[in-house]
C-alpha cells in the first residue's frame, strides 16, 4: 500500500525527531555533573557549576523524551492517514 504524501512527510519528520532525540540522549552531561560535586571542589563557584550542569542534564533528558513522544505521535498520525486513504470512498 502506497503512503499518502502527507503521511510520508510525517514519517520523515518523525525519523528526524528520533535521530535528534537519540543524539541529545547520547550527550553525557550527567557524567560531568557527577564530577562537579563536593568531592572535587568546594566553594560557591563549584556549587553553581554543579547546579548548572544538573539543570542542563534534566532539560536535555526532558527534551529527548519529548521528541521521542512526538515522533511516536507523528507515526501514529501517519498510519491513520494511510488507513483513511486506503478505505473505499464514503467510508470516511
Amino acid at each position, binding site marked *: 500500500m502506497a503512503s499518502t504524501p502527507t503521511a510520508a512527510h510525517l514519517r520523515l519528520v518523525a525519523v528526524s525527531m528520533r535521530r535528534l532525540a537519540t*543524539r*541529545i540522549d547520547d550527550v553525557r552531561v550527567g*557524567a560531568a555533573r557527577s564530577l562537579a560535586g*563536593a568531592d572535587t571542589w*568546594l*566553594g*560557591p563557584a563549584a556549587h553553581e557549576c554543579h547546579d548548572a550542569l544538573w539543570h542542563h542534564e534534566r532539560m536535555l533528558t526532558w527534551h529527548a523524551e*519529548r521528541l521521542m513522544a512526538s515522533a511516536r505521535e507523528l507515526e501514529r498520525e501517519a498510519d491513520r492517514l494511510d488507513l483513511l486513504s486506503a478505505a473505499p470512498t464514503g467510508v470516511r
Partner: protein
Amino acid sequence: MARDELLAFDPVRVGLLFRSLCRALDQLRAVPIDACTPDVAGQATLSVRRAIADIDTVWIPLVQRVLRADVSSPSRVVDDPVALAAITSDLRDIAHDPIRSRLALRTYASWPELAAQLAGERQMLVLSPDAEHVTVGEVDAALGSLGAVVGASLSAACSSTDALAALTDVSPYTAVAMLSSMRLDSFTLADTVAALVQRWLDEPHLLQVVGTHDDADPIDGLLALLVDDPIACTRFVADVSTRPEVLLVPGHDASLAQRVVLIGTDPAHIASSASGALVLPVIHAVTSSSEVDSAEWGNFLVDLVAPWTVQFSPHNDDWHVDASRRTALLAAVLGADGSADRLLHAGDRVLANLDDWIRREHPSMEDLAAYIGSLGLLISEDRMKDVQAKKSARDLLFGVISLAVSALPLTVGVGLAATAIVWVAHSIATPDVRAERGMVNRGEDTALAVTGASVALRITQAWQKTGKLSPDFPLPPKADPNADYPSLRFVNAFGKWRDTLPGGYYGALADRITREVYTVVNPAQTGEHLVILMHDTMRP
C-alpha cells in the same frame, strides 16, 4: 556569570571534570540542531545551544582557571551567607563518609586556613555583630561541619595523637569548636582535651590568638566537652593525675573543672581500686597549693572524698597507699571549717560507699570498727556548729552502725560483735576522753540504743527469712535518738515487743534475742545512764 570563589579542590578530579565537560561539549555540538522545524524540536535545539554556550563560555574556562590555581582566597567566602551555607552543606555531606572525609582533607590542604578565617570572622562578629553579613550561628555551623569532616577522617581506632595532629594548626577557639563536632570516642576525646589543656597552659601565648575574644575561655570550652561523658571525665582525670595542677590554674571556671573531677571519680564510673590514683593526687594538689581559694575548693574536696570514706579508713587497702598518707590527706580535707557539715550533706554517699564495701568484701569486725571509729572522729558532734548539724552527725553515724551490724553473721553472737564494734570504734575515736571521764555521755547512750535496735532487727529479719518467725510479724522497735533517754526508751519498748514473740517471755526466741540485745544495752545500763544523764542535765 559564576563567581570564582573556590575554597579548595582536588586537581585530579578537576582534571577529570575538564575532560568530561569537553566530551559533553563535543557531543552537544554533534547534535544536528538545524534538522527539524517543528516547535518541539526547536525548543530542544534551543536547550542544546544554551548548554553549549554555558559549558563553553562559563564552566570550561572556570575549570581551566582552577587547574591553573587561579582561584580566590577563602576570606571572600566566609563573609558571604550564601557561600557559607553552601560550604557548610558540602562539608556536612562529606562528613557522612570517612573515606570521602579522608580524601577531602588530604586534598584540601588549605582547610586550616578556612578554619582560621572562620575564627577571625567570628571574632569580628563578637566585636561588632551588626557590621557583618553572617551570624555567629552560621560561622559556628561551618566550623562544626569542618570539625565533623576532620573527625570522620580519623579512623575508628585513631589516637589522640591523630586528633592533636589534626588540630595543630588551628587556634584554641577553633580547636574547641571543631573538637565538639569531631565525634571522637570518650578516651580519644579525653586524651586530646588533656593534651590541649596542658599545651595551652605551657604555651599561654597560644591563647592570645584570634577567636578567643568571646565569653567562653578555650580551656573552659574544652572541659565543657567532657561533662556529659562520664567515661571521658574519668579518663581525663586519670590523664592529668600526674599533673593535677592544671585543674587549679586561676582565671578559668573552677566549678567546671570540679564537675569534671567529681563526675570522673564518681563510684558509678570508676572501680574503688582505681579511684585512689585519681582522688589522692587531686587532694594533694589542692591542699598544698598556695594559690587556691579555699572557699572555692573546700566544698569540692569534701564532695570528692564523700563517696570514698571507706577507702580512707585505717584497715582498708583498696588503694595500696599507706594509711598515714591517706589519713593526712583526709585530715587536710576535713580539717577546714564547715567541711564536716558538708560531709553530712553527702551522708547518703557515705552510706552507699559503706554498703558497697560490706557487700563486696564482707569486712571483718575489726575493719568495721576501725572505719566507724575514724568516721566518728571526723564527724564528732563537737565539731558541728548547730543543733541541726549535730543531729545530722548522729544520724549519719547511727546509719553507719546499723549498716555495719547488718553485715555481721548471726553465728558469732551478733550482739557481742556489735558491742565490740561500738566500743572499739569509741576507743579509736576518743580514747583519752573516755579514760578521763569514765562515764557515759549522751552520744554513747544513743549509740548503744541504736546498736541494740540494729541487733534486734538483724536477728528478727534472719528469723523471718528462715521461717522461725512469720514474715508479717511486727519488727522490733527502733531507737529514738531524740528521746530524752534513748537507751531507756528503747529497752522498755524492746521488752514489750519481745513478750509478743511466739513462746512469750519464757520462750526460746525471746531468750535468744534478749541475750543478744542485752549484750549491747540492758536495763542495768539504762538505769546507770539515766542517773548520769540526769546529773549532767541538772549540773549548772
